[in-house]
């Protein structure tokens, strides 16, 4: 492989990887606080992509993005109120199954409301006009996505470590009952957690739709799985781990095809093999060793 080709692939990997990372941090944050895998995360991602599709038809793009993120976090709060809050005292497995139910519900609701016809997403042109360096071509988006991911991670860390609701979230992750006794409104903090997680999902959905400009009700399924793998590989519950896992997963996928073109049909399988191998050697994921210190 020539060095040009390798660098091109590196940038391809960075783009996919940081998109996975962006989805994975939402998964990981919700898990870190509630010890609960929100399987509907990928579908909130889809809803976010649709929201911006409709909002961008009437509003300038940045405003449309804000509306989409706001709409999706409201959706997350509603999902929590309807499908998770009634199961707060039930065994964790019930909430998990409820999440799978919500996932199917959102997909099929999407099918009914938006129809199955893929819609072309709005792409701000400056983000997708490639920059040419010799034979290497890079989209400005390839720099934008990691930047957005970094800003959101910093924002998230700030909320979790520097604000009072963040303190309550960390407290809930340790011991719900004691937190309740301290006078914290558990339901409000958990709703806030889902709102925040859904806002992250929507942000990911928006960036994803710019890179892959085609929106349909099942758009969140495969990215959702991949991001879940990324979160687990990185150590679920750890925000840094989710970023690392996402970038690693993107790199493995792209490089596997780049070095072994004849294996390109097994590209998705590489992701799952990576998951198995890492879990065999580090069952808690790459950055998940300190179990009790998860945010």
């Amino acid at each position, binding site marked *: 492989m020539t060095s040009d080709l390798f660098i091109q692939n590196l940038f391809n990997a960075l783009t996919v990887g940081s998109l996975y990372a962006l989805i994975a941090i939402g998964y990981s944050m919700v898990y870190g606080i509630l010890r609960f895998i929100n399987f509907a995360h990928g579908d909130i991602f889809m809803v976010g992509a649709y929201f911006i599709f409709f909002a961008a038809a009437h509003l300038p793009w940045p405003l449309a993005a804000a509306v989409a993120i706001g709409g999706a976090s409201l959706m997350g709060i509603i999902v929590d109120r309807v499908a998770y809050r009634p199961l707060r005292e039930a065994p964790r497995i019930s909430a998990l199954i409820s999440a799978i139910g919500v996932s199917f519900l959102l997909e099929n609701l999407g*099918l009914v409301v938006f129809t199955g016809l*893929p819609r072309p997403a709005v792409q701000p042109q400056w983000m997708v006009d490639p920059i040419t360096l010799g034979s290497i071509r890079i989209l400005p988006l390839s720099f934008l996505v990691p930047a957005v991911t970094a800003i959101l991670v910093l924002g998230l860390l700030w909320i979790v470590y520097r604000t009072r609701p963040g303190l309550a979230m960390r407290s809930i992750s340790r011991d719900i009952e004691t937190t309740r006794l301290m006078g914290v409104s558990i339901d409000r903090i958990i709703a806030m957690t889902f709102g925040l997680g859904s806002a992250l999902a929507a942000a990911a959905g928006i960036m994803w739709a710019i890179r*892959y400009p*085609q929106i349909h009700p099942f758009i969140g399924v*495969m990215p959702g799985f991949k991001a879940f793998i990324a979160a687990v590989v990185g150590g679920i519950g750890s925000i840094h781990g989710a970023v690392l896992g996402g970038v690693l997963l993107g790199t493995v996928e792209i490089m596997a*095809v780049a070095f072994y073109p004849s294996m390109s*049909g097994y590209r998705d399988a590489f992701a799952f093999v990576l998951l198995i191998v890492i879990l065999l050697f580090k069952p808690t994921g790459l950055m998940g060793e300190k179990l009790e210190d998860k945010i």
Partner: protein
Amino acid sequence: MKFVKVLAGAALAVFMFAGLAQAQIKIGVYLPLTGQNAFGGQLELEGVELAAKEIPEALGQKIQLIVMDNKSDKMEANNAVRRLIERDKVVAIIGTYGSSLAMSGGEVAEAAKIPVVGTSCTNPLVTQGKTYYFRACFIDPYQGAGAATYAAKNLEAKKAAVLIDVSNDYAVGLGAFFERSFIALGGEIVSKLKYNSGDQDFTAQLTEIISQQPDVLFMPAYFAEGGIIMKQAKELGAKFRIMGGDAMDNPETVSIAGDAAEGFIHTSFPYDSNMPDMNDEAKRFTAAWKAAYPNKEPNVNAALGYASYVMIIDALKRAGKAEPAAITTALAATKDLNTPLGLLTLDQDHNPQMPVGIIEIKDGKRVYVGEVQPAE
């Protein structure tokens, strides 16, 4: 009093008899009305419905269409055919868009001995060795040869690459047939890469293909993936022409791919609402469609849906009775049937012969540039 009762009874009997005489012929339709193939399925259904409106009766009985959505899903296609046969007791079935779906539904129909006419399922295995599956469209070896002929002769391509969805029977088949014909025509396949349905990132595959510098990329995808493949190819600076199959025949191709679709070529069935030399039946169909659906252009899927219904009615008439076995025998003998796609005659494998249409995207519009007779 007794007399009145007798009279009422007689009247009732007459009504019942009339009811029997007015018995309906039930024809099932299973198409993808939702999911990734919804666009084609919807148009095919509208084609079937247009034909049913024109020919509402056969053998003096009313035709009742029973429509099932197979949701672009193999399992749902299987269930849809089962329900049509077991619950609705249909005598014949129309469907479907998508070879994978047709193969799944075909299993059930074959076991239950109910004839099916496929609309746009082009994989040879749909009808090969089957007694009860027929179709209104050509098959992929022929389509692949058509695409290869156009690439080698008209585009003068020497080197080709293929990019195939490995989880899709249609794509795997059509890709292989293109490859075989292109090599037979003296061309070289320089790269052969794969992906899976639902994938959205093709940059790794495309970077590899670009490095092999082919003249043409053959990509028998569905339009949803095809659109973003074209887009990513352009972003990565691809210089080759991209070609696809009939599944790319969709206005959304251009709306998703934007200017990346410029110069894209795909094969199709020989009907288009803007084709230059339209036969009389196609002209009549186009006019009837525009009267029925003023806001929608007819396309090739609509024409195939229409033709499928016409094939069943023709078979019903020649069979003389609405029984599955008789309809099956009559369908197999379909000869010179006048449809918007030309005169249809089924061969021993239940496939009609028709030329391969070529469509090119020019200035953001689909242009029917002509037809090729594949070099076998």
